[in-house]
């Protein structure tokens, strides 16, 4: 029987409420940080679709974020488009590119999949690095934000922009949560757990993998478009492989296989690196120690471990839940 209030949704609700509260109370910089983290959280969720659900560990996911960013930048700055259709086209374009890439890469597994996604994303990085029309390695400044006057939001106010990104993130979360609870999502999890069995049951495994690869690419494109609007700027660094690496670390640190885990990972990793890097030049050392600690003591990730203990606890069971 499906329950409406799973632990994941409960925590998601809590996070949303917390960030809405914070976006009112913190000052300018905190609001900027909320928007930044929310955008990262959307990006992390999109990667978790691949890593946690379909078992496709991609080290090139930033390519689709970058494509979303560049499409937004190029269409609005160089062609003078309105932001709303630009965002839709950016998402579609990221989807199209991920379809083209996906056709070739979803057949591969494990280390081969990691290497090919890394290679493809570096190709995109190299293209934008060298392309002088789009600013080369200096990047492309001057990107505006979506006009939301009609909804009573002025997006140049950082609090309002933070709220806007939060709303988008909630919509993305609901959409992906429904998708993953649907038969489509169940099939994916099945493929992750035992691909051969699913194949022998007659499931077109490659098509399912391709579909999730495209969806993940589109959501990454959306986060890219938001990031370009937030920073007003896009450069090839947005699609460098280290960006893919950092978001992969976020997903793993948070806990793979649950959307909330990806969000928790994005929040904690970003906040930590912000705080520690203000304190010391050697902040990367402390981040490294932190990740080692997670791998040693919370191998399911921060949220994964939390959820495990929570589900075992009496309180959660007494609230009428099975230890799912």
């Amino acid at each position, binding site marked *: 029987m499906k329950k409406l209030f799973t632990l994941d949704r409960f925590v998601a609700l809590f996070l949303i409420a917390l960030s809405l509260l914070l976006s009112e109370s913190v000052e*300018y910089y905190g609001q900027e940080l909320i928007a930044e983290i929310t955008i990262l959280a959307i990006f992390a969720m999109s990667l978790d679709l691949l890593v946690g659900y379909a078992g496709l560990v991609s080290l090139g996911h930033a390519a689709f974020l970058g494509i979303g960013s560049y499409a937004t930048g190029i269409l609005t700055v160089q062609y003078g488009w309105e932001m709303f259709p630009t965002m839709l086209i950016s998402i579609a374009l990221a989807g199209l590119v991920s379809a083209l890439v996906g056709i070739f890469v979803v057949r591969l597994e494990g280390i081969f999949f990691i290497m090919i996604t890394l290679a493809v994303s570096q190709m995109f990085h190299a293209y934008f690095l060298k392309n002088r029309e789009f600013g080369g390695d*200096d990047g492309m*400044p001057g990107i505006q934000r979506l006009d939301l006057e009609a909804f009573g939001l002025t997006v140049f106010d950082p609090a309002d922009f933070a709220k806007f990104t939060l709303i988008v993130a909630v919509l993305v979360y609901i959409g992906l949560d429904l998708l993953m609870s649907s038969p489509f999502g169940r099939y994916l999890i099945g493929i992750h757990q035992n691909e051969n069995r699913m194949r022998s049951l007659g499931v077109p495994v490659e098509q399912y993998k391709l579909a999730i690869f495209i969806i993940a690419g589109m959501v990454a494109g959306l986060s890219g478009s938001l990031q370009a609007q937030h920073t007003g700027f896009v450069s090839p660094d947005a699609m460098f492989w280290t960006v893919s690496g950092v978001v992969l670390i976020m997903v793993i640190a948070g806990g793979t296989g649950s959307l909330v885990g990806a969000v928790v990972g994005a929040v904690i990793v970003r906040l930590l690196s*912000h705080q520690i890097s203000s304190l010391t*030049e050697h902040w990367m050392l402390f981040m490294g120690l932190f990740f080692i600690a997670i791998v040693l003591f919370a191998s399911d990730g921060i949220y994964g471990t939390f959820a495990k203990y929570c589900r075992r606890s009496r309180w959660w069971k007494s609230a009428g839940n099975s230890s799912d």
Partner: protein
Amino acid sequence: MKKMYFLLMVALSSLFLLTPIHAAEPVKVGMILPYSGVYAGLGKEITRAFELGLEVFGDEVNGRKIVLVQEDTEGKPNSGLSKTKKLIFSDKVDVLVGPVSSGVLAAMRDTVHNSKTPFVIANAGHDGISGAKCSPWIVRTSFSNRQVVRPMGKWMYDNGYRKVYLMAPDYAAGHQMMDHFKAGFKEAGGTIIGEEYPPLQGTKDFGPYLAKVKEAKPDALFVFFAGGPAIQFVKSFGAFGLGNTIPLAGAGWLTSPLYIKAQGEGANNIIGSANYIPSIDNAANKAYQDAFKAKHKREGSEFAVQGYDSARVIVEALKAVNGDTSDKKAFMDAIRAVTFDGPRGKMRFDSKNGNIIQNIYVYKNSKTNGVIAPSVFDVIKDVQDPSDSCTM
């Protein structure tokens, strides 16, 4: 006894009188530089030199102490921008100093401009900042890319190099540098007889490119390479044995003191243009190098001098406004009005675009006692950025 009390009271009350002055809010300088990643060395170098500058020129103005708030850009535009916002809106710094890379600078520019934060650029050479992207809130103590390369075009023509071959890595800055050189060189009447743009990353063997250069027999080869590729290129140039037949010229970063040792024989006889080399002969440079050597036991680099001069600019501007930064406009005007004879010679800011007006030094590497080092060959005085599209 009463007298003792009286004296004590006087002493205590004088403490109270002094306290408000000492407790005055410090002047916060936001150091927005790379402290990790490929450019970490440069970020630290500029910070050290800035601290040295404060020691030499005074770290307190009218009772306000100058304190640094360091933030790591990682050399990445996105991190740089987010740290810039932290410094401006959370730490509320009075003035920003940095960054190293042009990409970070381009990303920061709008935020700095819109928040009206005084900003002293201490390295990044992005041309746009002295052009279409200029701002009344930004000055630059380092250089604009074209400022260093363009005058070299004319200089080479004037010194008898009429046919020149060009080579630079295939990325935005590489092409920009070559375009600026071409502009200066062609204006003077020279001819470009060939251009090569090898890939930025992963060119291990410059042999095929150098073979083409050899065949074309130019009067000189003008290149732009920096960092790792510069080491690789100069080594290949030496190994290829072109040094005896074709003179090699480039912008200063080609044989920076930071890596000239790794480049070997190839670095000998190279002609370059730079805004600073350690052996410039003037009193201010001697004082700077002495102070730097005393503190760090080695020569101050061209990156360090930009941090040192930035500190001086800020200290002198603070003196001009008596340490009062509450009127940001007045403080910024004071920054723009600073002028002094520094290690690089006479420097001042261009009223048109806030870029430094400085001497460009043509240097030549030569070998003395087995060590290859640059010495000043010629000086091009008071070079301005040829700003065309800046409207402030």
